């Protein structure tokens, strides 16, 4: 199978069209020329035969054979005239002249026509002209004209037409060459541009797909991080709940301790009141002993025993007062310690309440964080779906671009070195598209 360039095909097509038109036009011209030549021949023939008939008719009237012959001789050298026959009405050949090359049987002897008749028979144009005058038909003039002029005219036209057709074909081929160039060049340019654009589109789609995969990976990583944050938030919530429980128990314990200390304080105050009473008794006893000692001293020797008893009583009283003072100091220490404990307990209660509030705030914030994390996760899912959709569209775009590239290559092939029946060009998908499609399928 011959290989033809698109341009050659276009040239051939244009040339064929021109050739067909030219041939048709030439044929038409030939036909027209033949007709015209034939009509001219007929016109000449009828004219000549008319003239001859007018010349011969008078001679026939007078039966002037010589006159007829002379009349016939006048046209003897006509190029187209092959024979002239004058026939009487009886059918007798009165006079005839014919060309040397006339073949037997080419002459027609027919005196039947009553009017001029033109016939084409045997390659000759036969004209039958009745010789009539004064209402009498003396005979018929039959002339045979050669169609050689027509053939010559046709032949000369054929040569001219052939030359013209060839010239037209050449011009047409040149115009076709130019036009095919004007057609093929833009097509080639468009094909190259299409190829370049489709390749750029494929590259862009590939880069978009790569970016989409990176984005999907980032989204997945972000989702994983958010899940970790959520897990941490849940742990924090659990720990804060535990802290809250401990804080609340601590608050209750501290309040209980404060209550107990308050009870102790109340008992201590009662004990202090009792001590005051004991102190007063001891003090009174001391005074009583002093007074007794005074009286004993004033009594002199007789009051010595009394003085001794008084002294013992004083020592006893002093001992009681010292014990009371010690107990009072101890109770003051206890009261101080209990006040410190109460203050510490109140501080602990305040701290525990603060801790409780903080734990509640942490729980609230953790809950809010969990909700926000869930919302972020949902947004990540939406984004992932959007990215997946975008990647699918990108793959579709890349496939379309690849198909476009293949079509452009095919077009270019047709333009440069195409085949009459171009082979189908396989659409080659980028490797990423194939892997992306596989990954997308596996993910689903």
């Amino acid at each position: 199978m011959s290989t033809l360039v698109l341009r050659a095909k276009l040239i051939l097509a244009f040339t064929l069209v021109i050739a067909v038109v030219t041939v048709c036009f030439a044929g038409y011209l030939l036909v027209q020329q033949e007709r015209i030549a034939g009509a001219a021949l007929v016109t000449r023939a009828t004219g000549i035969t008319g003239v001859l008939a007018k010349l011969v008719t008078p001679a026939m009237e007078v039966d002037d054979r010589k006159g007829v012959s002379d009349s016939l001789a006048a046209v003897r050298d006509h190029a187209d005239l092959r024979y002239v026959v004058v026939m009487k009405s009886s059918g007798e050949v009165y006079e005839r002249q014919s060309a040397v090359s006339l073949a037997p049987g080419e002459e027609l002897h027919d005196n039947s026509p009553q009017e001029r008749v033109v016939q084409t028979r045997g390659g000759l144009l036969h004209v039958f002209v009745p010789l009539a005058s004064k209402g009498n038909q003396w005979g018929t003039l039959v002339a045979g004209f050669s169609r050689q002029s027509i053939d010559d005219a046709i032949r000369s036209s054929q040569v001219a037409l052939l030359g013209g057709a060839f010239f037209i074909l050449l011009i047409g081929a040149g115009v076709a060459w130019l036009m095919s160039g004007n057609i093929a060049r833009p097509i080639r340019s468009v094909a190259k541009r299409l190829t370049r654009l489709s390749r750029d589109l494929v590259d862009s789609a590939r880069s978009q797909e790569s970016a989409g995969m990176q984005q999907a990976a980032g989204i997945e990583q972000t989702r994983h991080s958010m899940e970790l944050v959520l897990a941490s938030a849940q742990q924090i919530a659990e720990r804060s709940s535990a802290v809250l429980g401990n804080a609340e128990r601590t608050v209750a314990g501290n309040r209980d301790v404060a209550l107990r200390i308050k009870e102790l304080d109340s008992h201590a105050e009662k004990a202090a009141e009792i001590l005051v009473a004991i102190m007063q008794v001891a003090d009174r006893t001391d005074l009583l002993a002093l007074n007794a000692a005074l009286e004993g001293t004033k009594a002199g020797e007789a009051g010595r025993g009394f003085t001794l008893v008084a002294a013992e009583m004083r020592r006893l009283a002093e001992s009681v007062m010292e014990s009371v003072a010690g107990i009072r100091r101890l109770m003051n220490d206890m009261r101080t310690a209990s006040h410190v404990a109460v203050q510490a307990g109140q501080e602990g209660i305040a701290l525990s309440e603060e801790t409780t509030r903080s734990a509640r705030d942490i729980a609230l914030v953790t809950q809010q964080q969990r909700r926000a994390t869930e919302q972020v996760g949902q947004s990540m899912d939406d984004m992932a779906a959007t990215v997946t959709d975008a990647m699918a569209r990108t793959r579709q775009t890349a496939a379309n671009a690849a198909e476009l590239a293949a079509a452009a290559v095919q077009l270019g092939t047709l333009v440069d070195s195409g085949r009459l029946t171009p082979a189908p060009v396989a659409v080659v998908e980028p490797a990423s598209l194939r892997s992306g499609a596989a990954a997308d399928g596996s993910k689903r």
Partner: protein
Amino acid sequence: MSPCLVALPDSPPEPSEPQASAGEAVPLMLVRVGGRWFALAARMVEQVAVKGAVTRVPTAARHVLGVTGLRGGLLPVVSLEQMIGTVGPTTPGLATTLPRLVVVRAGECEIALVVDEIRGIIDDLPAGATAVPSGAGRPAFLAQEFEWQGRQVGVLDVAQLVAAAAQTPGGA
């Protein structure tokens, strides 16, 4: 004003310093006022009592705190601290008791002295008692002093003390 204190200005009593006569012991009552210790003749002390409510007497001297009821009668309450002057702050470690009243008698006159503590009665004036040098700052009722258990104890003459309580400017 107590008639006892009013009757004394013109006839100050004779000093009644405890006499360490041979064989005769002079029991002394040791009392503390602020940071100073004093001794009074026990026989001059009528009784000791708790310092109760003291009713202020208008126009009384500064050292006369007022009067108080004791054993059915009214007694003038005299601040020994005001009479003596600076007695210093109470030394830490001393036994703190309720303020006492030491009722002393000089003749027919009884006054109640406010003291911070009554330590007790000693049998006799220690041998090392010395006379307090006379001077502008020495009260007349403070004639001797001795050392007892590491403390300087001033011996008060009760009669002079009572007279001094009545003679202080500002008394009625």
